[in-house]
């Protein structure tokens, strides 16, 4: 249980307005799993395993790639949904998971990161942002958990580029390469084979393309489009899209 002492850390972020809706309070049987409400069909972001997010660290930069389809059961809502958020000038947050949780949680983190920067006059370091994100996931875990998996990439002047793997149950690892979703089986294998530290931008994008090709050809319901974003000393920005299906206009038929 989260005790009061755990909350009194050196600097506390103000819990600015959370956009959680009130849960319906119909009577439930009390059970030992009651508080940590992962309901049976809400495993690791059920059906959200089709969402692929992967990333890697190169020479002075980090890349995060994510698919761009927003899917609900058998329906594809849109295929240009941007899942890699630019957290601040030098950080990227690629997220996959329950659609509502993904947007609400990542925006909440983004606003708190901005608040820190206004309060203190300097931006948060990547490691600090990753630990804050993980802390918020951990706090919510045994109350009202978020089903979001996150890859946080950032560039700091003193540390260089770094990538953090943050799980939906608040695992935190600093990694050179990481991936989420069914696509991770293919992406991680390709990266294990071809990745080496200090890759140049061309090599890294080439590796990302190899991963995307694998995902497209081997995953049964493969997402057609991907977005690639990069963060380096010049900041966080979109690098490229890889589209195999453009949203067709009416006249296309």
């Amino acid at each position, binding site marked *: 249980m989260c005790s009061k002492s755990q909350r009194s850390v050196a600097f506390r972020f*103000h819990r600015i307005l959370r956009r959680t809706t009130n849960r319906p309070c119909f009577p439930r049987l009390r059970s030992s799993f009651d508080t940590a409400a992962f309901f049976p069909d809400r495993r690791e972001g059920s059906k959200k395993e089709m969402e692929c997010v992967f990333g890697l660290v190169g020479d002075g930069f980090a890349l995060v790639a994510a698919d761009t389809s927003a899917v609900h059961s058998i329906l594809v809502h849109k295929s240009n949904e941007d899942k890699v958020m630019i957290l601040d000038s030098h950080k990227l947050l690629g997220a996959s998971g329950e659609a509502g949780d993904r947007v609400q949680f990542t925006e909440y983190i983004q606003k708190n990161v901005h*608040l820190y920067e*206004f309060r203190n*006059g300097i931006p948060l370091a990547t490691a600090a942002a990753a630990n804050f994100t993980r802390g918020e996931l951990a706090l919510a875990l045994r109350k009202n958990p978020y089903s979001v998996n996150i890859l946080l990439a950032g560039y700091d002047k003193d540390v260089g580029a770094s990538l953090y793997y943050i799980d939906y149950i608040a695992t935190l690892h600093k990694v050179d390469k990481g991936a989420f979703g069914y696509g991770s089986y293919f992406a991680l294998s390709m990266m294990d084979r071809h990745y080496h530290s200090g890759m140049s931008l061309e090599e890294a994008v080439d590796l990302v393309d190899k991963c995307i090709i694998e995902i497209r050809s081997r995953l049964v319901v493969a997402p057609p489009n991907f977005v690639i974003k990069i963060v380096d000393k010049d900041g966080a920005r979109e690098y490229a899209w890889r589209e195999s299906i453009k949203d067709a206009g009416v006249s296309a038929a």
Partner: protein
Amino acid sequence: MARYDRAITVFSPDGHLFQVEYALEAVRKGNAAVGVRGTDTVVLGVEKKSTPAPRLPVLLLHLLLSSVRKIVSLDTHIALACAGLKADARVLINRARIECQSHRLTVEDPVTVEYITRYIAGLQQKYTQSGGVRPFGLSTLIVGFDPYTGVPALYQTDPSGTFSAWKANATGRNSNSMREFLEKNYKETSGQETVKLAIRTLLEVVESGGKNIEIAVVTKEHGLRQLDEAEIDAIVAEIEAEKAAAEAAKKAPSKDT
């Protein structure tokens, strides 16, 4: 009269809230601050002088004074300067910054200058109507650009919780003289002219020099930019040169006659 000024929750028989009026006194003792709105720029200026604490070694004090920023940004497009109790200012500024982010989170839009001014004024008013608390002892000058129309704005709030929009205004020490100067000399300006007007106003009441004045310029493209001492000194030199030229021009015709 003395019976009605102990608590904020007590009106005097002639309708005054003495605690609020005393808070305004605290503002009048604070550092001078001026705000000027131009067509494409808004400028905030504050006086950097403060009475030194008796025991602090002079060098340390100088370091402290030179590193304390009196003009703060609330969001990328909004800045604030204040006169009065600086400790109270920290509380208000913190709440305002949170509100700026909170607004962005819930409404996905940046705040307008008027919204955040209304929020800060509302906070100040809350503390004039509660038991056991005292009003915030500061007036704020809030500047910024409307995020969509790009129109610049300058607002002022005071301890009573009222706020209003201005083309130019001053608060704090000697604010009356600064206001008189502005009433005589204000005209629609843009860019560097707005900065010069703000500095000229401050120079009426402050010792001349970059180390006694802090200036921040807010533009639509670049947001808040603090001018450094060298820049301020350069502009002050320009102003003094202009003044000298004006003096010389006044004297010259009388020589001819």
